[in-house]
């Protein structure tokens, strides 16, 4: 038996609030692993991703769900992607690496980021105050993803469906980011 035990406490754990027309919450146990496509090994890596997730890696700025619907593949740039899935223990990276069988480089990003889910009829109106990306459904469809900056904080925004968005920003500044989103909701309520 180890003498000491560690407890997990991500910065926004347990946050879940409803406002007029907007729901805002921190998803539980969201794991994020980055995938880098080796130079010259892109085809093999994409193949490995497809066979691991049953879905092809989309184009930069897009995301898709895996065939089983449990993981989201987000293409960040020509040679980098995230896989986002629910996974509680701190071994998300080996978990993904194993699936990809060495065809790509993987790095655990779970603790680098802090996630917020925002949804509801007024979600877009609130986000308009901080998000430079055009979130109109014609311009930013389901699955679309964009890295940008909100209130001086780098943010990855993904339209997960309809009026729901997943926002990832740095975990060290998670409280400031939450404050920014809450202020937007307050100001547009």
């Amino acid at each position: 038996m180890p003498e000491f035990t560690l407890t997990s406490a991500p910065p926004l754990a347990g946050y879940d609030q409803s406002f007029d027309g907007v729901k805002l919450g921190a998803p539980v146990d969201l794991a994020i692993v980055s995938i880098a496509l080796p130079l010259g090994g892109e085809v093999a890596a994409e193949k490995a991703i497809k066979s691991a997730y049953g879905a092809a890696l989309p184009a930069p700025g897009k995301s898709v769900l895996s065939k089983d619907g449990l993981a989201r593949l987000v293409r960040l740039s020509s040679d980098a992607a995230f896989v986002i899935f629910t996974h509680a223990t701190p071994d998300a990276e080996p978990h993904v690496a194993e699936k990809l069988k060495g065809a790509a480089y993987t790095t655990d990003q779970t603790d680098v980021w802090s996630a917020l889910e925002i949804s509801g009829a007024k979600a877009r109106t609130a986000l308009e105050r901080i998000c430079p990306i055009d979130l109109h459904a014609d311009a930013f469809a389901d699955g679309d993803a964009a890295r940008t900056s909100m209130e001086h904080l780098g943010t990855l925004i993904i339209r997960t469906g309809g009026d729901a968005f997943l926002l990832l920003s740095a975990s060290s500044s998670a409280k400031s980011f939450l404050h920014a989103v809450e202020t937007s909701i307050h100001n547009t309520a």
Partner: protein
Amino acid sequence: MIINHPHLGPRDAAEFIYLGDASLIDRPDWQDENATEKFYEYGYLRNNPAGEHQELWYHEQGDRSWLVVTRNTLTHEITKVEMARDVARARGRSK
């Protein structure tokens, strides 16, 4: 300003960091006989044109790509945006 990213479409230039003339890609060879002179020119002298300018922008609040943007320094009109990596390869920087 808006930079039309080749992969991601139009993005506010505020997401980018500006570096300078795209000639910064053409880093001299340290073993060249005039290396010191060439590095001095590379490091310090600029064409600084009033007109079309090829320049490096980094999509820091985005996909972390370096871009070569062709922009007019008199009007700010952008006529071309390329991935810097492709430009570097085209300029013979492949190993």
